[in-house]
C-alpha cells in the first residue's frame, strides 16, 4: 500500500517525515538538556517553576521562575486603612500568619510610638512560637513526603491539627487568625486555653523525638540528606539567607537573641546550629527548634503577667464592648476607628522579626493619612529562594528535589 492510498492526516505526514538517522552523535560530545519543572509539580511546594539545564542527571544551571502566585498584596494594602490591611498582609506567607501580622503591627506601633502591654507581648510570643512549631511541622511533613515517606506527613498533621484547634479557640480562626493587632492582641485567651496548650506542650517534645526516630534510622532518608548540597555560612550570608538555613551552616544568627523584641529577652532558649551545612543539618536544626519553641511557650505561660491585652490608647485600639453602651466617647472612637481608621504620623520604618524561615522585615511609609503609602515585606522565602542555584548546581536532579524541600520556600511569601 502506498502512502498516498492511506488516509493520513497532516500530523501523520509530519511524523513520518522525521528521519532520526540524520541526527549526528559524536562519542564524548555530551548534550545539555533543558528541562522545565513546574509550575504545577508536586515537588515544588506550590506554583514554583524551575528551568533546569541538565548534563545527564547533573544540574548545570537552574533558574527559578516565580510570580505565578503574585497577588499584589503590597498594592492592596495601600488602599486599606492600617488595621484593615492586617488580614491581607497575614495572607502573604500563609504558614506564618502570626509573623506577618507581628511584623506589620510592630512597624505601625513604632510609627505611632505606643507601648504594648506586657501581657500582650507574652501572648504574642506564645502564639508566635506555636506558629513556628506549626510551620515546622508542615515543613517536616511535606519534605518527608517529597522523599517518599508519607507516614511522617500524617503524624505531623496530627499535631498540626491540635495547634490549629488552639488557634481557633483563642481567635476564632484556624488560619489567618488576625490575632495580632496594632497595640496588642485581639482578645485575651479564653478560659481553659492554657490547660490545652500545656497538654500539647507535654506531648510535643516526645512527638518530635518520634519523628526523629522515624527518619534518623531510615537509610533512604539519610542517603538523601547526609552530605547533600552543603553550603558555607559565608556564601549563604552573602546571598542574604537567614533563618534555619543559615543556622544549619553554623552561623548562630537569630534576631530573637541578637535584637530582642516583644520581651524575647525574658526567656531562656538555645539556638540550634548545624556543623556541616548539608540537608541533614537543615532538617536537624528545625527539629531541634520545635523543642526550643516548646520551652519558650512554657516559660511564657508560667510568667504570663496580668493586665490588659491591648493598649488603652483609644485612638488605636477599639474600646471594650461594654463601654459602647455607656460612654459617648467610646462610641465616637469606635466609629472613627471602624470608618476612617487611625491616622499614623508621617514617617518611615523598617521592622524585622525572626520567623520560621528567617527575617520578616516590614517597611512602611506613612504620609500622615489613615492608609499606608507603601508597605513592603522582605519575605525570607523570596530572598532564600535566590540561593537555589548556588546550592544545587553540580548535584543530581533528585538532590535538588530534596534540597528544595528542606529549603522550605512558601510560594505565597515568595510572590506576595
Amino acid at each position, binding site marked *: 500500500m502506498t502512502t498516498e492510498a492511506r488516509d493520513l492526516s497532516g500530523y501523520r505526514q509530519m511524523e513520518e517525515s522525521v528521519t532520526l538517522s540524520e541526527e549526528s552523535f559524536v562519542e564524548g560530545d555530551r548534550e545539555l538538556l533543558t528541562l522545565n519543572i513546574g509550575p504545577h509539580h508536586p515537588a515544588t511546594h506550590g506554583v514554583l517553576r524551575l528551568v533546569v539545564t541538565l548534563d545527564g542527571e547533573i544540574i548545570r544551571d537552574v533558574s527559578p521562575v*516565580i*510570580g505565578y502566585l*503574585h497577588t*499584589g498584596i*503590597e*498594592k*492592596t494594602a*495601600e*488602599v486599606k486603612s492600617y488595621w484593615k490591611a492586617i488580614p491581607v498582609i497575614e495572607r502573604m506567607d500563609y504558614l506564618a500568619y502570626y509573623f506577618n501580622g507581628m511584623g506589620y503591627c510592630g512597624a505601625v506601633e*513604632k*510609627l505611632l*510610638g505606643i507601648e504594648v502591654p506586657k501581657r500582650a507581648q507574652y501572648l504574642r510570643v506564645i502564639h508566635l512560637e506555636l506558629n513556628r512549631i506549626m510551620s515546622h511541622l508542615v515543613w517536616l511533613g511535606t519534605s518527608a513526603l517529597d522523599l517518599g515517606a508519607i507516614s511522617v506527613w500524617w503524624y505531623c498533621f496530627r499535631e498540626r491539627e491540635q495547634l490549629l484547634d488552639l488557634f481557633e479557640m483563642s481567635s476564632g480562626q484556624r488560619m489567618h487568625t488576625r490575632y495580632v493587632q496594632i497595640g496588642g492582641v485581639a482578645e485575651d485567651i479564653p478560659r481553659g486555653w492554657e490547660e490545652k496548650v500545656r497538654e500539647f506542650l507535654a506531648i510535643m517534645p516526645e512527638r518530635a523525638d518520634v519523628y526523629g526516630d522515624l527518619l534518623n534510622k531510615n537509610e533512604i532518608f539519610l542517603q538523601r540528606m547526609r552530605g547533600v548540597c552543603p553550603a558555607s555560612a559565608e556564601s549563604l*550570608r*552573602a*546571598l*542574604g539567607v537567614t533563618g534555619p538555613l543559615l543556622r544549619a551552616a553554623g552561623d548562630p*544568627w537569630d534576631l530573637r537573641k*541578637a*535584637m530582642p523584641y516583644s520581651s524575647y529577652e525574658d526567656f531562656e532558649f538555645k539556638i540550634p546550629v548545624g556543623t556541616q551545612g548539608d540537608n541533614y543539618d537543615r532538617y536537624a536544626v528545625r527539629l531541634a527548634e520545635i523543642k526550643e519553641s516548646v520551652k519558650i511557650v512554657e516559660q511564657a505561660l508560667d510568667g504570663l503577667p496580668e493586665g490588659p491585652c491591648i493598649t488603652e490608647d483609644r485612638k488605636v485600639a477599639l474600646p471594650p464592648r461594654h463601654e459602647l453602651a455607656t460612654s459617648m466617647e467610646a462610641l465616637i472612637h469606635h466609629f472613627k476607628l471602624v470608618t476612617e481608621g487611625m491616622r499614623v504620623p508621617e*514617617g*518611615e*520604618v*523598617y521592622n*524585622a522579626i525572626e520567623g520560621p524561615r528567617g*527575617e520578616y*522585615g516590614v*517597611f512602611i*511609609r506613612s504620609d500622615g493619612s489613615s492608609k499606608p*503609602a*507603601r508597605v*513592603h515585606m*522582605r519575605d525570607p522565602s*523570596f*530572598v532564600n*529562594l*535566590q540561593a537555589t542555584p548556588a546550592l544545587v548546581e553540580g548535584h543530581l536532579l533528585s538532590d535538588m528535589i530534596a534540597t528544595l524541600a528542606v529549603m522550605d520556600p512558601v510560594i505565597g511569601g515568595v*510572590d*506576595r
Partner: protein
Amino acid sequence: MPDAAGLEKLAAAIGPESVLGTVHTDVRSEISVRPETIVSVLAKLRAESYGDLRSVHGVDYYPEEPRLCVKYEMLSRELLDRVSVSVRVALDDPRVPSVTPDWPTANWPEREAFDMFGIVFEGHPDLRRILMPEDYEGHPQRRDFPIGGEPVIFTHNESSVPGWFE
C-alpha cells in the same frame, strides 16, 4: 539604629561628595546619597561593619519630585544596629547603578523594584520582570497606577483582552 550623632559620624565617613542628607527619627536612621555613588557608599558602609544588606525595595513619593526611590536596609551584626540608605531618581531618568555584583542578595529585590516601579538598575546581570508577566505593560506599584484598572480574564472574554496570549 545609630543615634543622631552616630548617624552624622557615619555620613561623614561616607563622605560629603556622595551624601545628600540624613534623616533621624525615633525609629529610623537614613542616609540619602547620590544615585551614581550608591556602589561606593555601600562599600564604605561595609567597611564601617554594616556588612549585611537585608532588603532592597522601591518607594514612590508621588507627587513629590524626584519621585522614585530605592531603599537599602543595612544591618551590622557586630554593632547589632541597622541603618538605611536611600537614593532618589526622577521618573524620566530612573537609573541607579546595580549593587548586585557586590551584594548577590540584591539580585531578585532589584528585579522586583524594576518590575514594580520601573527603576532601571544599570549593571544588573539579569534585569527582567520577576513577579508580573513578561509582556505586562506598566509598573503596578507606582502610586498613579490604578488598582483594579485591568480586566480580569475569564474564558468568555479571553479573546477580547488584547495581547494576553501572544
